[in-house]
């Protein structure tokens, strides 16, 4: 559908909805309602929709957790919640490792709770997002079990938090300490992002927000075969006499033939690959009704095109709230938020081959010539790659309100489903077509009851009691089938014989049945929680205690329940002793400590020793049987799981102070915390002589210590429209992690090329230290006539000098040391808002300090000998191979043929400082409201604005944008650049 049609569709639907509503609503119901409800009842309706936290001013919770206002956040053309919040919340670190619209982005609150080896651990480290009391469910990582490569999860792999339209959100809070998190239970072990949507008002109101924008095509330097040839020739000149390293050495044909125009001609593929991306977002909402029943309805559409490879995301969203008060003491409210996401994905060969599971011959990479490349890209038009996600969440809530006592019962459903349908025609895969279909869902249902007693005893004493029970059912499922070699390129579906009388019933008809693979998986997790909370306020002092017990079906039967407490104290010093003080307008001290359980992601752990169908091997990770018969054996590849696995839990201590000076012209919140995630399961490489790849054992503890700072100041307060106003806000998190314990009391452990050492950070690289190059064999140090070796291989001239840390003249893992951190030590944002008259100007900076990156892309380019010609993922060259990136002169010219692999990426040669500072947004806006008033228009407010985003990045990193690195810290060059975008928009209130 063309873009303008979307917009039209949106307005039409809006109009229809609005008209019908007016007819049915305003005439009858609303009027009768108005008569019998006291005027202040609106207050009650909206209030009870707020979250479970009481709305009394208990001082054990921080005043403010997000640097920018939601209004400011909504100006940024974000598609995901992560993008909206990046750099705005101290202690919330967001990894946006690709600028491709709608891809998964990670969030970490107050550091990483566990070492991140794979996407599975990343999944278990994500915070909980709560939208209007609905704890949102994400996708389950179990699908990775059938995947050989975990670049992307099978299915649409769309970021599910693209379902948040900031225009619908009234407040964003981030709960990082136990005073806030504990109420949300084990789901909240990694912190909570609390979103509250805009509430209804009893007056009729229409708001609209729209923007249009362009993401700017980046300028890159391209290279061609000649350039690459010259680059490689240096090594041949240095290390070969004849231009051949050995008689078997094969020089790639695409580089050796200088008359080949495809590779040696112009490198103009960028004309097809990169383009300016158009973006728009339109949201409109209407709210109204009366005091006894009211509603809000919002519709939106967002389209964001990426700057490369035809990527993009479309979102259609609708949100509906309704509140009704059939009886004076009874409130019914319901909310539904529905989103449809339609994502156009990149055409990376790596991702496609990983999906297909098959690698064609890789002797000739894509040519840098635009004619060839664009012709190649046209092949995709004969196939499809459809990615749809439908997300719907809603609640229905009944609140019985007897003044002090309230009883709430609510039913919450969150459901998301993803579809991916693929057909790749024959020319894309060496003459084999490929079709796959994925359907998967994640579903959460919650039945929750809680009662509260809110007793304002007198001016000095206030008591709030709450007790509740939560029953939660999560279930996840997917169906996945793929097939190779269809009969032709016109039948693009994996059709099955549908006639039950046919012998071939349910067998594939368009694809050979021997090449059709089907998968089905399902898992469930249930959670039962009981909790009680008491908060007591005596003048300036608040004390809250929360006790809860949670039972999880993924915990072992003998360890099913975990009891956890949380205690928080607040002391409002301002109220207690500084009431007359002019300087201190706020001074509030908070202290809280508590514990929360952490859930097991997999039900494997609840079952103890078990049996599974897994007779797989490298390159064939899905074999379930032999000789046409399913097998059952211990899960040797997964690892040993014994009995008696206790709950893991997170303990946190937080001391915070909220300060306000000069009538809150300057405010600051500073929180120091110690968070320790204890007793976590870790797969220890063990019991190989019993067939197991690892043994899952509890006992890993990781401590994160840090400080969150949120500082805001009205540097130039705006006293009249005619003077310049300047307010600034700085948010900062300093975090350090440390491994405090390993299972079995181990001191250190090597897993997947990472060293975990008790007392050291968990996010460090484990690398050899590079000290240059041995120019000749004679330079290699000898001990007792034996030359230095690397893992048993004698070093020669042309090999790197790796520092021999233990002095045994043998370079091996013992000479590696922990260096650098994957995650930044300091993350922060700096917002500035200037205003003059009706003008406003915003500047938003974002920075990361104290992090390192392994420039793997450069390592791979230099290690061309091992990455050429073999049918292996490491030999895959994307079209971006022809882009000049990085600084070639930084690296010595080693002998690339050496079996010590001189350009291996596990050395500090490729370790670089990845700190950066970004000017993320400049926004300029003008408020037309005054002018409208003069025109006596019905429009209450119009605000027009323009923004430039991702303006510049300052970084010592020699690769591309240092943000484009995922949780591994290795920059393989796959992140799509985060584009600079220009937008124009308006906000209008009727």
């Amino acid at each position, binding site marked *: 559908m063309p873009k303008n049609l979307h917009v039209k569709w949106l307005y039409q639907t809006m109009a229809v909805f609005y008209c019908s509503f007016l007819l049915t609503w305003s005439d009858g119901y609303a009027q009768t309602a108005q008569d019998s409800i006291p005027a202040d009842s609106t207050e009650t309706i909206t209030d009870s929709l707020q979250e479970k936290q009481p709305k009394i001013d208990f001082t054990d919770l921080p005043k403010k957790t997000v640097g920018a206002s939601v209004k400011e956040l909504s100006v940024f053309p974000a598609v995901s919640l992560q993008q909206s919040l990046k750099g705005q919340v101290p202690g919330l670190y967001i990894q946006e490792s690709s600028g491709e619209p709608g891809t998964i982005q990670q969030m970490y609150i107050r550091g990483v709770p566990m070492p991140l080896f794979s996407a599975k651990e990343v999944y278990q480290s994500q915070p909980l997002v709560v939208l209007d009391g609905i704890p949102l469910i994400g996708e389950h990582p179990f699908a990775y079990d059938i995947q050989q490569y975990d670049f992307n999860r099978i299915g649409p792999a769309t970021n599910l938090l693209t379902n948040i339209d900031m225009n619908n959100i009234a407040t964003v809070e981030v709960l990082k300490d136990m005073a806030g998190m504990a109420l949300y239970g084990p789901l909240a072990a990694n912190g909570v992002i609390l979103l509250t949507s805009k509430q209804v008002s009893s007056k009729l109101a229409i708001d609209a927000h729209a923007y249009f924008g362009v993401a700017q095509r980046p300028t890159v330097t391209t290279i061609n075969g000649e350039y690459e040839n010259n680059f490689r020739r240096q090594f041949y000149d240095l290390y070969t006499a004849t231009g051949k390293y050995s008689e*078997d*050495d*094969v020089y790639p044909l695409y580089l050796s033939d200088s008359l080949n125009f495809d590779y040696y001609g112009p490198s103009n593929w960028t004309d097809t690959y990169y383009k300016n991306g158009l973006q728009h977002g339109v949201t409109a909402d209407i709210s109204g009704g009366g005091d006894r029943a009211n509603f809000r309805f919002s519709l939106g559409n967002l389209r964001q095109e990426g700057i490369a490879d035809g990527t993009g995301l479309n979102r259609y969203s609708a949100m509906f709230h309704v509140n009704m008060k059939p009886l004076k003491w009874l409130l019914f409210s319901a909310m539904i938020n529905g989103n449809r996401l339609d994502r156009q994905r990149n055409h990376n060969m790596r991702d496609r081959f990983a999906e297909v599971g*098959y690698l*064609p*011959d890789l002797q000739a990479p894509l040519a840098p010539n635009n004619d060839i490349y664009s012709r190649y890209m046209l092949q995709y038009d004969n196939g499809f790659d459809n990615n749809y996600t439908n997300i719907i969440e809603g609640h229905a809530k009944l609140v019985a309100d007897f003044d002090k006592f309230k009883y709430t019962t609510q039913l919450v459903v969150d459901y998301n489903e993803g579809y991916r349908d693929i057909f790749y025609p024959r020319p894309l895969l*060496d*003459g*084999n077509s490929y079709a796959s279909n994925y359907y998967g869902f994640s579903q959460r249902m919650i039945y929750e009851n809680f009662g509260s007693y809110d007793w304002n005893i007198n001016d000095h004493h206030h008591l709030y009691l709450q007790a509740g029970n939560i029953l939660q*059912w999560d279930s996840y499922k997917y169906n996945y089938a793929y097939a190779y*070699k269809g009969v032709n390129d016109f039948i693009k579906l994996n059709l099955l014989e549908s006639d039950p009388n046919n012998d071939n019933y349910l067998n594939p008809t368009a694809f050979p049945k*021997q*090449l059709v693979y089907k998968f089905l*998986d*399902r898992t*469930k997790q249930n959670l*039962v929680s009981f909790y009680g909370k008491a908060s007591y306020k005596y003048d300036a002092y608040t004390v809250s205690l929360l006790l809860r017990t949670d*039972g999880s*079906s993924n915990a072992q039967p003998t360890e*099913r329940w975990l009891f956890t407490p949380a205690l928080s104290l607040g002391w409002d010093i301002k109220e207690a002793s500084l009431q007359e003080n002019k300087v201190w307008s706020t001074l509030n001290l908070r202290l809280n400590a508590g514990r929360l359980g952490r859930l097991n992601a997999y039900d*494997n752990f*609840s*079952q103890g*020793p*078990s*049996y*599974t*169908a897994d007779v*797989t*091997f*490298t*390159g*064939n990770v899905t*074999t379930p*049987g*032999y*000789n*046409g*018969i399913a*097998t*059952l*054996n*211990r899960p*040797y590849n997964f690892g040993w799981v014994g*009995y008696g696995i206790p709950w893991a839990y997170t303990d946190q201590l937080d001391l915070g102070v909220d300060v306000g000076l000069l009538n809150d012209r300057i405010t600051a919140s500073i929180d120091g915390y110690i968070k320790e995630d204890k007793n976590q399961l870790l797969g220890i*490489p*063990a*019991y*190989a*002589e*019993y*067939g*197991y*790849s690892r043994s899952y054992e509890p006992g890993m503890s990781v401590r994160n210590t840090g400080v969150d700072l949120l500082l805001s100041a009205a540097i130039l307060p705006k006293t009249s429209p005619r003077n310049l106003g300047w307010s600034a806000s700085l948010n900062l998190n300093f975090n350090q992690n440390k491994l405090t314990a390993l299972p079995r009391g181990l001191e250190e452990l*090597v897993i997947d090329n990472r060293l975990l050492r008790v007392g050291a950070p968990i996010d460090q690289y484990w690398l050899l230290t590079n000290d240059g190059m041995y120019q000749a064999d004679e330079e290699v140090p000898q001990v007792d006539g034996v030359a230095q070796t690397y*893992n048993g291989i004698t070093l020669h001239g042309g090999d790197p000098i790796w520092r021999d840390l233990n002095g045994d003249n043998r370079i*091996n893992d013992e000479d590696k040391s922990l260096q650098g951190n994957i995650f930044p030590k300091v993350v922060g944002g700096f917002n500035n808002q200037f205003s003059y008259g009706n003008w406003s100007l915003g500047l938003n900076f974002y920075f990361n300090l104290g992090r390192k990156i392994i420039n793997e892309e450069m390592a791979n380019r230099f290690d061309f000998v091992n990455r050429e*010609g*073999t049918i292996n993922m490491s030999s895959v060259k994307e079209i971006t191979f022809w882009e000049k990136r990085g600084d070639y002169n930084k690296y010595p010219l080693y002998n690339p043929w050496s079996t010590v*692999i001189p350009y291996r990426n596990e050395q500090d040669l490729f370790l670089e400082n990845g700190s950066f500072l970004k000017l993320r947004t400049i926004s300029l806006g003008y408020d037309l409201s005054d002018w409208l008033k003069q025109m006596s228009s019905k429009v209450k407010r119009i605000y027009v604005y323009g923004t430039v985003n991702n303006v510049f990045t300052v970084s010592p990193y020699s690769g591309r944008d240092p943000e484009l690195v995922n949780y591994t810290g290795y920059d393989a060059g796959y992140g799509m650049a985060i584009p600079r975008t220009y937008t124009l928009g308006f906000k209008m209130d009727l």
Partner: protein
Amino acid sequence: MFLGVWLFTGCKKMLDVDSTRLVNEEHMWVSMEDSRAALIGVYGLTRAALADNNAYWLYGDVRAGEFKAPTRQDLKAIIFNDLTASYPSMEALTDWRRWYAVVNAANIFLERIHEVKENDDRYTDNNMTVDIAQIRFLRAFAYFYMVRIWGDVPLITSSYDGNFENKPRDNQDKILTWAEQEMLAAAVDLPFRYSSGDEQQIGNYYNEDATRWMGALVRKTTAYAMLAHLAAWQGNYPEAATYSKFVLEMYPVGGLGYTETDDLTNANGFFYNKRENQLFGFNFDWGHIDASFTGHLEELTLASPLVNKSVPDIYLTKDSILSVFNELGDERFSLDTLGNPTTENYFMNFNGKYPIFSKIKCIMGGSTADPNFRTFSSAIVLTRLEDITLLRAEALAVLGERSGAIENLNVIRELRGLENFNEATGGNLIDAIFKERKRELMGEGQRWYDLVRYNRIRNNNPAFTKLINEGGIYWPINRSLLSQNDQLEQNAYWK
């Protein structure tokens, strides 16, 4: 209130969720389906150990150093005996975990199978006896294989389920003696065929007919064939002669026969899917949707024009081909008097840059018509009748029974269209037998072990003898294994 009561009673039910993804102890070992799944599982794990990273051929063929590897640096390292080089495939090849998965699965089977017997009336004594015999054989075979790769390894014959102990390496002679006893014991109970009216296996085995089982399971002849190999590896040639004799006398009972050259090299011939003649084989049956991209010799050897791949991972140079296939009329490969290949059974594209070793070429459903899709359905065959015939020839030759040796050698020579062995011009008999083995079993994971046995017998290559004496014929033990089990010590040669 009611709600509250319901909640408390319902809680426990709600939290007991049986996994749909795995089978827990409660539901295992209760029926014949469980014993079948566990039995086939041990086969599946053995196949996985052999197929992982094409280990069977990297150990058996590539290490012999006769193939060339133009592009893959890891294969070059193996060819040059740089076995500590760090490539992902080398990490896997130095790791014995997959073999111990076979051992552990077998140990658990032997310890728990009585539960099925107690729980399921359908599970007969005979069924159980045959199951146990197969499991014991597979476990012994796993140890024999490991000993050939690593020398001494820990001998673990109990599952230690949940109470695992780190064990030191045991002397390889002790292990081989034990393995021989186990195989002999298994051989007693193993039938010659399955679901075919064998008196030691009554009725349809697991309710499947003979076509399901042919060549897929271990038989009595299989056990004796591997016993012959085991004895030969020990240098115990009298026993090797005895065991091989059993196979050569009893093979017709098992429905086996010699394989013609055409059938041997056909895309849908001997190696395709499964057949009785695969004396010890692990199939990747096309019809069972079990064909795979990896775990086949074809992945290493085939290239254009047979499959879409420009350069093979390994190939033999023209010279090295001609140095072994130097007799006229060899149906496997020979040149005519004009110097042109008379057959493409073993090699295609002989005159090209890369002669393609195309003996095994079970592409997809056993056809060479479509080169586009490199998925293969050839079985991993550890031994076949021709192998045992030559092994017997070798044993007799070593024992000095020349006529018997020549007789057996000639069986194979005749089968491949060669003249009988000429004592006058044929040179050293041992050399001739090993040369025949090289030609016949090329690409079947045998060459490296042949070289070791050959050099032990002939002792005429000082470098190789040195390798044998210093323990360099074994592979290094993966560093990760050494770090997780402090009782282990690295092989001296690789320290």
